[in-house]
């Protein structure tokens, strides 16, 4: 085995793993606060992949501006989804299963909408970066991958700061441990939930943009959420740090496995390992287990 190739695969894998980490954290944030699996996150990813494409292709061909606009669009989309679809159910105190069904439905709605309207074509982003690769010794790192990793790192760092240090972050964490009590302390829980959805949507928007930029845009980009969900399980549901580590690990493992045993067997090995992991250590890397509360 050639060590250079091995190292090269790990580097590629970690870059993609950064995006998995973004998805895992965006998914986990909502799981933390409302305790349900938010499949509509995949819908936000698909939606923003298209938004990013149309902005950069037809409005302004500037990477930074379109990137930021897409991130904000993702945040707003998530807030709108929360308002229209999740809040009415939450207000009436319906069971969590209703939230899950609605989130699955939103994911389906977005995917099918784009499949019907724009599904016939593939869309590619304009080339922002002259495809120049960096050569570090014997390694070749594509700039786009490096940029992806850098953006993921900065965004996740910023999110960690907000969650840990700011007032709204504290409110989100309070709502995560108990959604009812903070309202007794004068916290506007509806607002906190909206903000959590906004953050999650921003992460989704960034994910959509990066995925769209790296690959082509089609209605099924949102299915990549599966990778984020897997990373989220490995990391321990809802833990930011765990999600990041697991995302990077998953990216690297996937890239290595594809190199060694081929693209067909890789998903089977990965899902098989997940099932084993749940048998041995269901709480994942971060070691936090979400108990069912009375």
């Amino acid at each position: 085995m050639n060590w250079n190739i091995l190292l090269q695969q790990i580097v590629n894998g970690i870059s993609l793993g950064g995006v998995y980490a973004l998805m895992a954290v965006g998914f986990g944030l909502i799981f933390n606060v409302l305790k349900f699996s938010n499949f509509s996150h995949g819908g936000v990813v698909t939606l923003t992949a298209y938004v990013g494409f149309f902005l950069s292709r037809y409005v302004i061909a500037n990477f930074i501006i379109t990137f930021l606009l897409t991130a904000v669009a993702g945040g707003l989309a998530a807030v709108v989804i929360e308002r229209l679809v999740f809040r009415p159910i939450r207000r009436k105190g319906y069971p969590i299963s209703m939230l899950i069904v609605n989130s699955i439905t939103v994911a389906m709605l977005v995917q099918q909408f784009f499949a019907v309207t724009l599904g016939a074509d593939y869309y590619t982003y304009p080339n922002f970066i002259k495809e120049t690769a960096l050569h570090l010794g014997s390694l070749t790192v594509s700039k786009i991958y490096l940029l992806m990793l850098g953006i993921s790192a900065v965004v996740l760092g910023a999110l960690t700061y907000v969650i840990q240090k700011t007032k709204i972050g504290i409110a989100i964490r309070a709502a995560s441990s108990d959604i009812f009590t903070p309202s007794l302390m004068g916290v506007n829980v509806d607002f906190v939930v909206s903000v959590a959805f906004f953050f999650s949507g921003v992460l989704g928007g960034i994910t959509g943009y990066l995925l769209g930029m790296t690959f082509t845009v089609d209605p099924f980009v949102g299915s990549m959420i599966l990778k984020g969900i897997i990373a989220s399980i490995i990391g321990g549901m809802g833990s930011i740090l765990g999600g990041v580590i697991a995302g990077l690990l998953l990216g690297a493992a996937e890239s290595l496995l594809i190199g060694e045993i081929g693209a067909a067997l890789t998903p089977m090995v990965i899902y098989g390992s997940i099932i084993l992991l749940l048998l041995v250590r269901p709480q994942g890397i971060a070691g936090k287990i979400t108990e069912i509360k009375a």
Partner: protein
Amino acid sequence: MFYLKVLEITSLYTILVLGVYLMTGLTGLFSLGQGGFVSIGAYTAAIAYLRFGVPFPLALALAVLIGALLGFLVGIPTLRLRRDYFLLVTFGLGEMVRAGLLYLAQLTGGALGMAGMPKRVGLPLILGSIAVITFITYSLKRSRFGRDCIAIRDDELAASMMGINVYAHKMKVFIISSATTAYGGALYAFDILFIEPNLFNWLESAKLIIITFVGGLNSIAGVIAASTIYYSFGEFFRFIDVWRDVLLAVVVILVIIFRPGGLFQGLSLLPSRLRRKWR
């Protein structure tokens, strides 16, 4: 003739929906990997028949057996954990089955799919199966076991405090549901006569759940009605068929917000307990 054909295909899907209803209606578990079980059932029966010359009834039985076994294996690590893990792992399972079928191309024909099964399934067998499955589901719901399961669905913690073995109950229901779904898959293979790995992706699995909720978790009749309407819709309204899923999604969101007991609440045979909270 045309209507009979529509009824046949619609009823085929209704069997799959009933498989989901068994599980979600009784224990509140969601599986996004039902498509995986459909594929497993379809491929098991088809491979047994075509490659190993197993007679059709035996091939059906084999499909049911393999489906139940797969359900058991997936259930072991996931059913002890929070429901979300079950949901997420079954989501992965569907994709895993798809990847597996593509990988085992020598046996399964890979992306080209499998054809060449003789037509062994017709309307009588399908409708008969629906009747039997409905009867089993109904009896299960009325039995002590079924009531225990509904208690688990409504409040898992309280149910376990009352001495109900939550894990064992969920496991039994999941195995029955997997077997039913695999059976539906096997019928599919010998009715439609062509199967391929991408036939049942996560979207198809999601639709099964969604239709169950539109019909109402407490109403077998409602679920069958919802399934019949949805799956025959495309045949009668071809001009807007492509928008079918978008329309379904919008309807579902409205139904869940405004009529959480399901569109056909009035058809339910048991009192609605959906307003009660479980978590």
